[in-house]
C-alpha cells in the first residue's frame, strides 16, 4: 500500500473522534488556569484537562467590560507546560475566534457564556471544525440545539464565578427531569417538542429578515427549518431511548468544594469543570487534589469527609439574586 493511499484513508474531525475525545474526559475534573504555573498545579493534582483563560470567571465578573478569547501567547504558554489536553473559550457565535484557536492547536473549544456573546442571532456551526466543542445549557432545549449544531460535549451553565452551586444543580435537574419525561411521551408529542425547540432559530431568522420564515428559508446556515426539526426529533428519540444525552455531560458554574463536585456526580454528571473555585481559594494545590479525589469517589461519603478537611478558605461566594449580570442568560 502506498503512502498516498494510506493518507486518503485517514479521517480527521469526525463525530466519532470529537465525541470520543469528550468520553476520555469522563470521571475527571477540568480546571480553569490563567498561566503555566497554575496549569502545572492542575496537572499534578490529577486534572484531565485545563481550560486556558486570561481571567477566571470571578475576575471577569468583577471587572466587567467585554470579555474576549484569551491572548494566544498565553494559551500557547499553557499548552507547552502540560501534556494533558488544553481547552480554550471563544465568544458565543464568534467563529473567527474559534478558527484562530483551532489554528493554534487547542484540543477543545468552549463556546462560552462566560465571555461576552458576539452574535445576537446564532451560535457557531460547530460541525465545520476539526476540533470538538463543549457548550453550556440550562435546559434540554439548549442542550439539544447545541448537539444539533455539532457540540461533542455539554455542560450545565450554572452561574460561573459565584462559587454558588444552586444554578448548576438547577440546570442538571431540569435537563435530567426533561429526559425522564421523554419516556412518557409518544412520538407525536416528541415531534411537537422538536418543533418548540427549533423556535429560537425561527425567531432569529425573522428578526434578521423582517419577515415570516417559510419552508424554503434557511434558518441556520444552509439548513431549512423542516430539516432541523426532523434532526432534533431524531436526537430526542435517541435521548428517550438511552435516557441520557448522546454526548458527555459535565457540571459547571459554581463548583467550589469537594462536596459540590460529589453532589453533581451523584446527580448524573459525567465529570466537572471547576472555574474560579480552585485558584480563587486560599490553598489551590490542596483543593485541586481534593476535588479530583471527590469526583473519583463521589459515592463514598467517608472519602468526601476526609478530603474536605483543612482545605482553607473556599472562594468567596455570591448570592444569585444580588448579581448584576447573570451569565447563564447569555445564549439561547
Amino acid at each position: 500500500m502506498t503512502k498516498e493511499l494510506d493518507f486518503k484513508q485517514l479521517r480527521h474531525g469526525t463525530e466519532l473522534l470529537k465525541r470520543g475525545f469528550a468520553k476520555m474526559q469522563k470521571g475527571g475534573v477540568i480546571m480553569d488556569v490563567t498561566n503555566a504555573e497554575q496549569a502545572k498545579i492542575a496537572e499534578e493534582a490529577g486534572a484531565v484537562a485545563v481550560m486556558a483563560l486570561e481571567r477566571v470567571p470571578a475576575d471577569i465578573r468583577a471587572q466587567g467590560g467585554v470579555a474576549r478569547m484569551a491572548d494566544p501567547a498565553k494559551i500557547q504558554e499553557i499548552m507547552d507546560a502540560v501534556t494533558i489536553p488544553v481547552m480554550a473559550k471563544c465568544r458565543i457565535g464568534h467563529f473567527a475566534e474559534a478558527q484562530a484557536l483551532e489554528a493554534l492547536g487547542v484540543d477543545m473549544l468552549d463556546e462560552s457564556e462566560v465571555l461576552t456573546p458576539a452574535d445576537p442571532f446564532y451560535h457557531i456551526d460547530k460541525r465545520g471544525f476539526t476540533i470538538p466543542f463543549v457548550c453550556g445549557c440550562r435546559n434540554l432545549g439548549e442542550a439539544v440545539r447545541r448537539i444539533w449544531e455539532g457540540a461533542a460535549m455539554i455542560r450545565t451553565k450554572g452561574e460561573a464565578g459565584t462559587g454558588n452551586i444552586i444554578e448548576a444543580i438547577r440546570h442538571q435537574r431540569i435537563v435530567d427531569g426533561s429526559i425522564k419525561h421523554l419516556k412518557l411521551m409518544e412520538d407525536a408529542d416528541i415531534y411537537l417538542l422538536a418543533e418548540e425547540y427549533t423556535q429560537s432559530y425561527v425567531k432569529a431568522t425573522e428578526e434578521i429578515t423582517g419577515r415570516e420564515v417559510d419552508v424554503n428559508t434557511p434558518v441556520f446556515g444552509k439548513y431549512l427549518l423542516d430539516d432541523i426539526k426532523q434532526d432534533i426529533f431524531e436526537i430526542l428519540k435517541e435521548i428517550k431511548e438511552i435516557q441520557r444525552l448522546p454526548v458527555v455531560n459535565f457540571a459547571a458554574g459554581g463548583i467550589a468544594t469537594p462536596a459540590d463536585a460529589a453532589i453533581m456526580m451523584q446527580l448524573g454528571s459525567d465529570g466537572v469543570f471547576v472555574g474560579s473555585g480552585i485558584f480563587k481559594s486560599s490553598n489551590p494545590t490542596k483543593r485541586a487534589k481534593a476535588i479530583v479525589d471527590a469526583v473519583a469517589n463521589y459515592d463514598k461519603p467517608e472519602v468526601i469527609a476526609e478530603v474536605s478537611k483543612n482545605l482553607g478558605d473556599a472562594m468567596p461566594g455570591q448570592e444569585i439574586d444580588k448579581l448584576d449580570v447573570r451569565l447563564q442568560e447569555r445564549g439561547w
Partner: protein
Amino acid sequence: MVKVGVIAAQGAISEHRDAFKKAFKETGLKGDVVLIRDKEDVSAADGIAIPGGESTTIAKYLHRTGIAGEIIKKVTNENMPVMGTCAGCVLLAKEIIDDQSEKVNPLSLMNMSVKRNAFGRQRESFEATVNVEDFGKPYHAVFIRAPTITKTWGNCKPIAMFENKIVGAQQDNLLALSFHPELTSDLMFHKYFLKLVIKQP
C-alpha cells in the same frame, strides 16, 4: 465463570464494560464484568482492562489506591492478562520517551517504549485502517491523541501497524493498543482478550 475487571479511575469505563458484556454474549463465553475502584477489587478479577483516558490522571489513581501494586503482583505471580488501550497502553510500558515523561509513573510491565501524543494534539486525531497480524482482516481504528509504541524488545512483539508505526503489541498475556477498540462496534480485540483470560487455569 471468569471476571474481567475494568479499571474505573477515569475515561472510557462504561464503553469497555459494555464492549466486554457484548463480547461475552457474542462468543457464548461465561463471564462477567466488574469495575475496579479499590485495590481489594483486583483479587476478584481474572483479567483487567485499563481504559483510555488521561494517562497522568489514571496513573496517579492507580498508585494512590494501591491498585498498581496489586496488578503488578498478579501479573508477576499469576500471569494475569491485562489489556491497555491508549492511556492504558502508555501505563503498561517500561519506558515513556516523550519530553515530559516524568509526569507519568507507568506499571512497567511490557518490554516496550511508548511516546505519548505521538501524532499531535486533538486536531491530528484520526480514524484509519490498521493492519493486524494474525487477524486476517483490516481493522478500523480510532486514534485520539494517541501514543505509539516506538520500540519493543525481548518477548514483547508488535501485532498492529499503521504506516510503519507500531500501534499494538503483545507480550504473553499482556495486550497494548494505542487506539480505542471500546469506541467502535468491532469487538475483535475484546474477544481476543477474553480468550487470553479464559485460557488461564
